[in-house]
């Protein structure tokens, strides 16, 4: 049994670890992309401009309503085709360019993360105490000062739990990239199953690895939340 997981040519330990590395890389690269999109979406939906608001609303609503796997396929299959068509149109002699599964994964997962994060951030903005904003106005602060000095520092505190959940979801969603042939943890597991014919063993192993990552994330997030709430709740 244990030789199955051995590290090296005979066992699957090294393949699965390599898959895990891809999974972690994918999640870590996606996070800033998703957060950036999330902030854009939140600002768009809170903006005073109607078209911008509509854009923000459309993006968050549609992306949240579509299965992640559909988004992934659209990006992976569609974007590659479009990219090449676009390039040809620009320069008929352009060499066909490459659109790697990794990039597709980052873009698709980032778009999904961004849509949800947009809502989390918008909600956090709106749950900031209006009284505190008024107190800022009442001493003559400008809107920018109010945003920077009062809203932004507290935004983090309100948004952190929601963003933490999104991170964990995204970590799990990376498993979907296995269907577009990125050699992540899930795909390496499938490969191992294909060869060893031991589906239960290997899928369970994969589950346990994902679980461990999520539990670890939860621990770290709880720590961050505690820090963010310093001084907010009573010590007792």
């Amino acid at each position: 049994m244990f030789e199955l997981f051995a590290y090296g040519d005979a066992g699957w330990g090294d393949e699965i670890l390599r898959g895990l590395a891809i999974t972690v890389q994918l999640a870590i690269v996606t996070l800033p992309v998703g957060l950036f999109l999330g902030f854009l979406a939140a600002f768009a939906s809170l903006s005073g401009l109607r078209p911008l608001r509509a854009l923000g609303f459309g993006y968050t609503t549609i992306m949240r309503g579509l299965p992640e796997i559909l988004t992934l396929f659209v990006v992976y299959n569609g974007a590659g085709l479009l990219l090449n068509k676009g390039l040809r149109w620009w320069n008929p002699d352009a060499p066909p360019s490459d659109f790697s599964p990794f990039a597709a994964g980052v873009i698709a997962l980032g778009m999904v993360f961004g849509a949800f994060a947009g809502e989390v951030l918008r909600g956090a903005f709106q749950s900031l105490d209006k009284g505190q904003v008024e107190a800022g106005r009442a001493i003559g602060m400008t809107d920018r000062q109010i945003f920077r000095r009062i809203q932004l520092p507290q935004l983090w505190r309100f948004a952190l739990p929601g963003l933490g959940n999104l991170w964990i979801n995204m970590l799990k969603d990376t498993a979907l990239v296995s269907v577009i042939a990125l050699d992540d943890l899930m795909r390496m597991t499938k490969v191992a199953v294909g060869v060893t014919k031991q589906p239960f063993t290997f899928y369970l192993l994969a589950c346990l690895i994902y679980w461990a990552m999520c539990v670890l994330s939860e621990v770290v997030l709880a720590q961050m939340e505690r820090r963010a709430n310093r001084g907010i709740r009573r010590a007792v």
Partner: protein
Amino acid sequence: APASAQSLRLGTEGAYPPFNFIESNGEIAGFDVEIGLELCKRIGVECEVVAQDWDGIIPGLLANKYDFIIASMFITEDRKKQVDFTNPYYLAAMTHVAPKGAGITEFTNEALAGKVIGAQSGTTQADYVEATYPDADIRLYPTQDEVNLDMASGRIDLQVGDMLPMLDWTRKSDDGACCELAGEPITDPAFVGEGVGIAVRQEDDELREKLNAALAEIRADGTYKSINDKYFDVDVYTMK
């Protein structure tokens, strides 16, 4: 990619033993891959092997994720609309596979109505099953591996697969021992077409010509045969 490139990428599935599969050291190997790499050598380029799930294998070529597909793909009219094929590099037939002692002898829609029939999704086998047995309970799997896995665990009564991999599976693997080939080989040209070819993008005529030339070369000098013999008892190029 221009055929003059120094290196090319070879796309294959990696879940279709013995033609293409992933070994426990993570390398992709198999008949398709060996032939493909040999052809690269003859053209004079380095080749990198890229694994791609079957579902997306043609889109992947069109999106330039690799430069040609050598993945036991039948040359069919539908596929020709999207990609160009080289000359066939082996001939093939499809076959039914059933659990040993299942006693299925008649292969008509009526006889198989209600039976659970499996095949890999997106393949000519799947097309064949769907067209021939509309009244059966048809299950389509992402990979051939999974069809086999489920056949071994007894979820399906019958499957249709490529002749050679099925031969290999039923005779050489442990889990394949559950099952045996059933009925006559399926050679209906409407499904099997002209045989199995290498797919390239339609604009890459030069690459296609080079591949054809290299194929003829390895066929002529016996390299093909030595690879063939590592995997099969018969010469798959002629099926004789």
